């Protein structure tokens, strides 16, 4: 914000100098403003150009404010943007702007002064522009025309090059590490996650106790990464409950999540060789209301006396309400979420908690599939890169060198 203020001031200074250096009369006859005694000057150096990186619905106008414009509206009360399909005539107002404005992106309708009809901006149509400065004294000074210029759509947004670079780089990393993992087999080291290991024991516990297992997929929508990770863990849990012949209860908060969870559990029971043990009653929809859901699940816990509760996915305020109830009921609880704010609650009430990314890593951890392990390694490598960038950026910026920032800044 500040820099643009300086820039503005600087620009005005230059204009004032230019104006002062210009021999009188060379700009033609200008009426003098009665109030200030300054000449009434129109906006200068109007340039109309296609707005870059847009869908073609926009033309960017830039001009230099006349020297009288100090942004307060005392001398110049504002500007009017005029658009026409013809360089000489038919200019219609498309925008009224406040004082101190030197840039406008035109994509709106212009009002026909006669009919009042709105004439919309049309992509790829050549337009001419003029900008009029409105003086407080009532004078209106119109700039010269700029154009013709067309609003064109771009196929590629060049401000997003850093994002593209990062994406391609990350993609390459993933592919590279997957290849590497394929060669090494599943020997890649993954830090053991106690919570993941303990899921089997928790299921065993439920089996020995002859009580059901509760699996909560959280409040996330089906496309949340946490929910996706949760499906993987659910598959594993379901396979084990099929194997151990233990009851599994999966109350859902979202209909689509429920459908996917049903499919997951059904497949898991099939893979475990007990398709007969699966029923649609295991995975069911409760409600999408947060606290009504809590009430229902807490009721389940207390009535069915679940021995083991698993919470994996997105959780909000309900995390503690669920896990504390489970804690009171004496169940073993394993949780994992990427909602950082809920982690303290889970840590203190659950036996095991997967923290943030650990949840995402769960599928790689459980499957030990080289493909998934490779992706995990790529992620670690990318994280190292980010760390290097952060340190480098901090050092460079401390010395006032900002090219790194320039390179990685995304201009929307």
């Amino acid at each position, binding site marked *: 914000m500040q820099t643009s203020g300086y820039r503005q001031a600087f620009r005005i200074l230059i204009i004032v100098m230019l104006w002062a250096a210009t021999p009188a009369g060379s700009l033609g006859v200008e009426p003098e403003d009665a109030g200030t005694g300054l000449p009434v000057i129109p906006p200068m150096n109007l340039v109309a150009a296609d707005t870059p990186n847009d869908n073609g619905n926009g033309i960017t106008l830039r001009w230099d404010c006349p020297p009288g414009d100090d942004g307060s509206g005392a001398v110049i009360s504002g500007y009017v943007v005029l658009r026409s399909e013809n360089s000489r005539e038919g200019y219609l107002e498309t925008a009224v702007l406040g004082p101190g404005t030197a840039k406008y992106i035109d994509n709106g309708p212009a009002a026909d002064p006669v009919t009042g009809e709105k004439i919309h901006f049309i992509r790829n149509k050549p337009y001419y522009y003029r900008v009029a400065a409105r003086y407080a004294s009532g004078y209106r000074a119109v700039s010269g025309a700029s154009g013709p210029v067309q609003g064109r759509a771009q196929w590629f947004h060049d401000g997003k090059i850093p994002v593209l670079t990062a994406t391609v780089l990350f993609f390459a990393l993933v592919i590279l590490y997957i290849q590497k993992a394929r060669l090494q087999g599943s020997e890649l080291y993954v830090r053991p996650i106690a919570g993941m290991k303990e899921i089997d024991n*928790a299921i065993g516990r439920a089996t*020995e106790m002859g009580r059901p297992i509760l699996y909560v997929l959280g409040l996330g929508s089906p496309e949340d990464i946490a929910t996706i990770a949760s499906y993987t863990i659910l598959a594993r849990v379901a396979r084990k409950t099929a194997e151990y012949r233990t009851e599994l209860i999966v109350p859902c908060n979202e209909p689509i999540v429920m459908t996917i969870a049903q499919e997951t559990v059904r497949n898991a029971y099939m893979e475990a060789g007990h398709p007969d043990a699966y029923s649609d009653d295991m995975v069911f929809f409760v409600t999408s209301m947060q606290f009504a859901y809590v009430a229902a699940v807490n009721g389940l816990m207390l009535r069915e006396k679940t021995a083991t509760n698993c919470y994996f996915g997105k959780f909000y305020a309900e995390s503690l309400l669920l896990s504390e109830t489970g804690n009171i009921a004496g169940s073993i609880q394993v949780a994992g979420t990427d909602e950082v704010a809920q982690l303290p609650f889970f840590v203190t*009430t659950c036996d*095991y908690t997967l923290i943030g990314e650990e949840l995402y890593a769960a599928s790689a951890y459980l499957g030990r599939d080289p493909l998934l392990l490779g992706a995990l390694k790529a992620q670690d490598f990318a994280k190292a890169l980010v760390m290097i960038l952060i340190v480098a950026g901090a050092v460079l910026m401390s010395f006032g060198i900002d090219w790194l920032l320039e390179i990685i800044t995304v201009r929307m």
Partner: protein
Amino acid sequence: MTQKPEDIKVIIATDCGSTTTKAILIQYDEEKGEYRQTYRGEAPTTVESPFEDVTKGVLNSISELSELSGRELLDENNMILKKSSPSEGADIYISTSSAGGGLQMMVAGVVRSMTAESAERAALGAGAIVMDVIASNDHRLPHEQIERIRQLRPDMILLSGGIDGGTKSHVVDLAELISAADPKPRLGIGFKLPVIYAGNRDAREEVSGTLEEKVDLVIVDNLRPVLEKENLGPARDKIHDMFMEHVMQQAPGYKKLMEWTDSPIMPTPGAVGAIIERVAQLYDLQVVGVDIGGATTDVFSVFVDPEDEKPVFNRTVSANLGMSYSISNILAEATLPNISRWVPFPIDERELRNQIKNKMIRPTTIPQTLHSLAVEQAIAREALRLAFVQHKSFATTLKGVQKQRTIADAFVQTGTEGTIVNMMNLDLLVGSGGVLSHAPRRNQSAMMMIDAFRPEGITRLAVDSIFMMPHLGVLSEVHPKAATEVFLKDCLVYIGTCIAPVGQIKESKDVMKYSIDLPQGRQEGMLRQGEMLLFPLGVGEKASAVFEPTGKADVGAGKGTRVETVVHGGVVGLILDGRGRPLMTVPDDKDARIQQMLSWLENLKVYNMDELKALGRA
């Protein structure tokens, strides 16, 4: 038992092993007011043909005792003279047995890592060999499990599963499996197989309904009443009873032997476990005992469970780690480089293989040359190490236990998989079995035990001199005082104390400053990484010592924390092991390795160094 413990003055105990029957005599020393083991006799076991009567061997061994002690122990009918007088007879006679392959069991539980594992622990603790563990989740189909039960023909089955009030269906399913298999005992055709049910109380009715007809079902308290607690005692006792009633009844001569004994006959490993557990309990020690045999290696331990801070006894049998019948398997499991790292001279693979095969073909041979002794002891180190690794993975905290978390756990969360074996807490390490008990020098036993078990901090080392732990185990059931006194005074030969700082320190950097007040004067100095030192301190002698580990090292009080203590001597003395824990890696280069090995062996006076160096040059 009708006798009061204080009336017992003379005790005869025998252990009927598969090859020899060993008898010992324990007498009360009125002057010193303590029990001591006095004489020992040995005779071949006579279970198999031509004798087919175990009592013959027992009597032979006792008559040897009689001859040695000059005390009349047998009457004219060759019966043990009960009721002692100052010159003849004994007050009680007790025995253990491992003849006829010991007690072979099969156990079953619901979840492999929970009730099935507890059942396994109970059976092993009772001294059984566990042939197989059946669990609801062992990835076998029912018909495979049934087939397995039929095929193995165990002496006994221990069925558990479900906590009290827990699952019934799984347990009943297991009972049905056993029922469907309709197993017959290994010995004694026509008898019903004993099955002990130690599972969910609520499922008793269903289980007996399913099994009563086909097997001899006995019901005891649940061995896992809640997941947080194991209650192995009742099941273990019942296994001993059933061992007596069923298995022993069938073996030749045992009926007679059982009439003689004043206390139930115990399976040998069960008895060893009993004495170790008793001693640990009585003296508040954490103990590891190992018995390395020809075919198997048994490891016993008592460690405090970090979860509930109670001592827990564990026994494992490594069925394929033995110094004769299964010596080839040691090579296979340990791999050649791991064995050869302990050999202090160059040896090629063929030579090593030949020696191993020879030992397998002629199991009773004893090394005749220093060369073969060193090789055998290298193999023993690996056998012991592997057995201990297995033991550690079995001796774990209970699984499936609810944890109470605090914010401190946000940073580290440990699973319940953890072993309870914490070497830093170990007080006493006891070795037994030929290769350890009968090593030409005790220094060799010490070195083997340190290399294999890697004790941490301050640990006393001992060996069982004449293998009387089984006898004392049975005795401990009758007369705990006598048993523990004899155990500490006569059974154990103290080798000394090992002081090993934990930590990884760079080569030849300072590890620990020591100052030991030996009877012959104070010894002070600095232990360096990779160095082993020996200070003589005799049996029964004590020395006060101060150990000051450097920043990264720990001798039990924490990193860099000074320890002031009293150390006990032994036939070897005090051993300062500066090789770090985990044990420093052995150089890849052969010469460097041998050089390093030689320096340790020389300092610890393990072998005759001139002879050994000659071997290296040859």
